[in-house]
């Protein structure tokens, strides 16, 4: 009886643990194992090659280019996403009918298929047949190579990714803003605090836990962005949007170098864990969970 009582909590969590182990931990370990081997899905044997896959990756220009492009994408998209989301959330925090409708409208892209969004925006930004250039044309402006210019293509992806993700950030920020005690704003009003001052001194610090959460999530998402890249630019033009996961897909599932693909996945995992620790050390300490 005592034994059964001791086992009960483990039995309750067992189904979930088995599920996570099957679909997360075992694949991670398998990927780690594959990163030290050479395999193309076709050969029956997978010879052990030590660190050769890692050495080849670290010597590859494509990998360093992808790391640079992904970092640039993250640096451009994350502050833009969070800044815009906070501003919009501050406006949408009120509970009126039109605000609720706006929240719903802004959240829609988050639950829309990324593939559909990417296909539609490919056409919107097409040089010769796209809507954006058609609009520019009505003002007498020339055609812009949105997806063929290496500098612009990355910005287009930042825009599309922000448009897709911002609804989620707004909803989380609204929840964070609604949790700030009303009395603090009342006290600031009594003290004659101006709007910008109140926003900087009360809203910003108290919404910091939400910002920190969104920062962690959005940096991970930015480093893992794939679908819009693969559909809209396939990493081009000339590698200008070749993000890490797109390169990983190309190495693993186009060139079928499973060993090198797995090694890149492991490197990406280490990078993201490192970034999470860094964020926790630098920003985590400044986060206050009490008003």
């Amino acid at each position, binding site marked *: 009886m005592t034994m059964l009582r001791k086992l009960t909590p483990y039995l309750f969590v067992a189904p979930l643990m088995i599920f996570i182990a099957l679909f997360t931990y075992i694949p991670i370990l398998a990927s780690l194992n594959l990163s030290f081997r050479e395999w*193309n*899905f*076709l*050969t029956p044997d997978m010879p052990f090659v030590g660190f050769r896959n890692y050495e*080849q990756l670290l010597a590859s220009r494509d990998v360093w280019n992808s790391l640079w492009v992904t970092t640039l994408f993250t640096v451009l998209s994350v502050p833009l996403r969070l800044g815009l989301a906070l501003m919009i959330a501050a406006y949408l925090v009120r509970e009126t009918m039109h605000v609720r409708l706006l929240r719903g409208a802004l959240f829609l892209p988050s639950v829309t298929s990324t593939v559909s969004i990417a296909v539609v925006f*490919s056409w919107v930004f*097409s*040089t*010769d*047949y796209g809507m954006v250039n058609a609009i520019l044309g009505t003002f007498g402006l020339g055609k812009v*190579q949105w*997806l*063929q*210019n*290496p500098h612009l293509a990355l910005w287009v992806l930042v825009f599309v990714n922000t448009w897709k993700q911002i609804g989620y950030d707004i909803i989380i920020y609204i929840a964070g803003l609604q949790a700030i005690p009303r009395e603090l704003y009342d006290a600031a009003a009594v003290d004659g605090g101006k709007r910008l001052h109140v926003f900087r001194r009360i809203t910003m610090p108290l919404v910091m836990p939400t910002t920190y959460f969104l920062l962690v999530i959005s940096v991970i998402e930015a480093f893992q962005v794939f679908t819009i890249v693969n559909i809209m*630019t*396939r*990493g*081009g*033009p*000339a*590698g*200008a949007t070749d993000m890490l996961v797109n390169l990983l897909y*190309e190495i693993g*599932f*186009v*060139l*079928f170098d499973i060993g090198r693909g797995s090694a890149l996945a492991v490197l990406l995992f280490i990078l993201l864990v490192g970034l999470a620790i860094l964020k926790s050390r630098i920003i985590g300490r400044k986060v206050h969970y009490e008003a």
Partner: protein
Amino acid sequence: MSQKLQITLAASVIALVASVGTAEAATDVKFWHSFNKSNGEALDKVIAGFEAANPGIDIEAEYVGNYNDIIAKLQAAIPARRAPDAVILEVTRYGLFANNNLLTDLTPYFDADPLKDDLYDYAREVGVIDGKNYVVPFNSSTPVLYFNKDIFARAGLSADTPLKTFKDITAAAKTISEKLGSEGISGIAAPGQFARWGIVMANDSEMVDPKSGEILLDKPNTIEAYQWMASLVKDDKVASPDGVTDEDNGRDAFLAKKVGIMMNSTGNYVGAKKALGDELAVRAMPCNKACSVPIGGAGIGIMATSTKDVQDAAYKFISYAASPEANATWFAGTGYLPINKKSAALPVAKEALATQPGIDVAIESLPVAHGRARTTVVTWMRTTEYKMWEAMALGQANVDETMKDFAAQTRSEEKRASN
């Protein structure tokens, strides 16, 4: 239980057992292919014809995407033991599977098949690696030059405008862009990879030597061909950059009557004819320094993992698909090259030749058509070529340096893969 009821029950059981027996006797062949739209309809006709003639075999055909998609899905399906029995494989990329013993050696089947003598030499050759036959050709093609007669006329060009050399094509494309650019019409579609290969051959060169396997990407004539192709987009601006980043865009724009000239596979003939009607004209690929075109398309291979009876059934289908009747239906329905010498004499092919002007251009190119290299590195080279082409065509990289770098990378990859 009454005697009548007992008899009825017994008869039902016998009928059920008999039907199960019949179902068990049927052999299912899972077949992956890359044909949709009008080409998919033509394939359905071929399959229906085969199943009518072979009631014991059921072809479970599945469209799984383009050639690249098939390669990717097949590679993932093999370790998962979900590979099909028969599969369409592009002629330069089946070597990867043949070299890993994943394709059935069809030589014994092929040698015993009277079909062998009916096939054109070029068709017999595309399925062979090191003397063994791994695929039987199905949809063979060469690139051809399509143009829109109406756009030519509106630009003041006659339908007889010379389009033989790179210079001729640039001149025609420039005229179209200058005269009709304000209407959103551009001179030429940026060439897709198959056409790029053809243009390199038209400049008396190759990407990879089909006999020795030597990499020829940095040969002066190859570089010169790429310089011309890139100039269409970046210097002369007669080809839309949209077709560089996604080559289907160039074809779609031609079909939408927004482009004057397109170099593409003859397999696009029927689709183009449907879209453009009498406005469509077809010419052979240019002969800038040589008249030479690549043979493209795909053949059908049988997976080594399938059971012997399924392999036998799959070969019957492959053999039927290359037969005069099926091949004539396929040729008339798609524009792909006839692979069987007897196809052209059949009424359906004769009618197509008589009523669809231009469908015979690819056939006339056959004397100068050549098979391409199919060494393992070709798959890598073709994948990487897209990035290189983008960089050159969009003016982000110097053509000469890029091609030399590309050649060096390809040699290095070949060395790495062989170790």
